[in-house]
């Protein structure tokens, strides 16, 4: 599957131009160490059952994730939800949490419920029934702490909810190898070594812009 094929499924009507349509980081997978290979391969395999999210919550998470990463590819979004599901279901800590904000599992679960309340207040429907523009408006409001006032926000601070969602979703999304390929990130690199790290130099296996994608300000030296 080439990136140029999948990118057309992207959100929004404008075509997104990518620099490296021919690069697939997975072509190099055989060169990676076995631990890294195992970690990345799991992102591409069928996902195990969820541990935390209910079906409805997972459905909501999918809609939210599509907005936050501006991407509609189901396999990638499913993986993002899976990552978040595992994190919330584990006993691993959350590194930091603002004093007064509930633990992340409560924040997310109650936060998803609150989305319905605020959607009803604004549009008379559940969040899941809103159109994309309306959903975006609700999420953008959360980010600024300016979504319509509902009592739930006293338990679930809206900005903290937004930050938690965006931070986990974005981290998972940019951990998917399809995205690495798209942005031309070299990805895992061991035991192979880099020799060409200076300006204008690339290893033979690194992402290269095709002629079509090279603008006037070419860096060829």
């Amino acid at each position, binding site marked *: 599957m080439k990136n140029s094929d999948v990118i057309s499924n992207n959100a929004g009507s404008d075509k997104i131009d990518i620099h490296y349509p021919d690069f697939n980081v997975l072509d190099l997978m055989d060169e990676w160490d076995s631990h890294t290979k195992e970690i990345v391969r799991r992102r591409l395999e069928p996902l195990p059952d969820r541990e935390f999210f209910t079906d409805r919550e997972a459905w909501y998470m999918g809609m939210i994730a599509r907005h*936050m990463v501006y991407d509609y590819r189901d396999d990638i979004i499913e993986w993002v939800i899976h990552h978040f599901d595992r994190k919330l279901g584990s006993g691993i800590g959350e590194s930091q949490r*603002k004093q007064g904000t509930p633990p992340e599992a409560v924040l997310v679960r109650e936060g998803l419920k609150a989305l319905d309340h605020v959607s009803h207040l604004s549009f008379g429907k559940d969040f899941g029934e809103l159109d994309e523009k309306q959903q975006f408006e609700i999420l953008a409001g959360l980010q600024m702490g300016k979504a319509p006032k509902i009592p739930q926000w006293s338990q679930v601070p809206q900005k903290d909810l937004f930050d938690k969602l965006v931070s986990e979703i974005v981290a998972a999304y940019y*951990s998917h190898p399809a995205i690495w390929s798209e942005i031309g990130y070299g990805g895992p690199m061991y035991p192979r070594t880099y020799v060409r790290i200076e300006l*204008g130099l690339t290893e033979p296996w690194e992402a290269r812009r095709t002629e079509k994608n090279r603008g006037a300000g070419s860096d060829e030296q």
Partner: protein
Amino acid sequence: MNNKGMENTDYIKHHCDHYLGHRYDHMGKRKYGDREVDVCIIGAGAAGSVLAYELSKAGLETVVIEAGPFWNPQSDFASDELAMQNLAWNDTRLVAGNNPLSMGHNNSGRGVGGGPVHFTGVFFRFHESDFRVRTMDGAAWDWPITYRDLEPYYSKIERDIRVSGPRYFPWGAFHGPYPYPEREPISANSQVFRRGCDVLGIRSTVAPLAILSAPFDGRPPCTNRGFCNQGCMPNAKYSGLIHHIPKAIGFGAEILSDSMVTKVLTDRSGDRVTGVEFVHDGKTYKQKAKIVIISAFVVETPRLLLNSATPGHPNGLANSSGMVGKYIMPHTGHDIYGKFDEEIRFYKGTPVLAVSQEFYETDLHRGFIRGYTFNAHGSRPVSMARTLAANAGIWGKQLKEIMLDFNFYARITLVGEVLPYEHNTITLGNEKDEYGLPRPVVTFSYGENENRLIAHGVARANEILEAAGGQPAFVVPDTAHLLGGCRMGDDPADSVVNRFCQTHDIPNLYICDASVFVTSGGCNPTETVMAVAARTADHLIQNAGRGGQKREEVSRGKVTANAR
């Protein structure tokens, strides 16, 4: 959330007891068992690793207790940002203040080696002025020690781990040369930084690094893999995990990993400590010791002291001054991005290969005191995208578009001094963790001096990026490192430890880690943490000799970097 009681919830479980010729996945065969050892060190990080090495080498019976695992770089590390967040201390810390800190991977390590397992390896000495901020700038405090007191230990650490760096380092009291030659070549991201500095007449150098530029001790030079923050797989980057700790084991030290110290124990009078209590996999154990050294970092060190309160020490151990947990300081860690027409590909190579300390010292014309270091600082997709989203509020289509140009960005990080303020603290919260201990609350707010320093640094960084041919793109607010909270001083009324890191209140209790810092300096602090540890070790060894505590050296095995 966690209903599993006091189980070890780390991702990875290994042997928990390590000493020369032995390793066990249970606590049934401990080297010393119920016996009292000379020294018990809590935490195997930057300070604890150096202490363990020096003290065991001098023949002291040493036990190190580490909350996290004893990593195996080959099978535990991976070239993946998301998976390697497990190198951080991820236990939830509550954060508060006007500028609540990012913790975890941002500043705290977990497991043998501690923070340096995921640090960038940037290795600076403090300047002379850093120890005399009160005298020179009329703010903060002077340290009870000077640069000269630490100088021999800076040199020793640099020699011991073969720091690589420039032949001439232009700033501070030390101008090189470093034991190992500077890194060559440097990455494109560092090249454009230096190019911009050259245009503006700002001096820059190749970074001094705790990363090998030539083979040493069975370890190879850096391969420019670029995953310093995810754990070095070739073992080119220093951490106690692959240097000091295996050697300490060779000298007779015992390392107990996956073991969380929950309390420092005192005798009935409360005048002396007698050892520690720790939890491994739900069971509580004790380790008796003549001397206890807490090297558990700026959050867990004060937390442990506060949680170890007794009727004789109602406000926590070593806290008669009320200074435990006060005056914590991060560094500013603002990331300044510039966009270029040419590909930079800042994922390649050691993340920081060029630096400038041109704005390190006070210049009152700038409108603030003290200063900062610039690090040309590469990044990777998760780190870049996540901080853009979480710290700079960029998401959706805008984030997607920025990230599609991932290879065209260069980045400079502003590591700026933060002055000590009484309102920046570690305290105990109401919520409890899985051990039943109150979680720490980390409270932080910038002051006016920092806001001015940040504005100055961001403007200069953008000028550098522009002079190099880039377009200033965005600034992501962030912090780095954490220091203070048990500061050293000569006066027991306003400090926690003396100039040798001995607590004023309890003569056989020491605190030796970044928490003893009086001021933050304006650069990466790990070398200073390690130099302070080496000096403390020297003091303990000399005192052990005088006190008749010096004992026959334990039989030494062959010491290799792979000894476990």
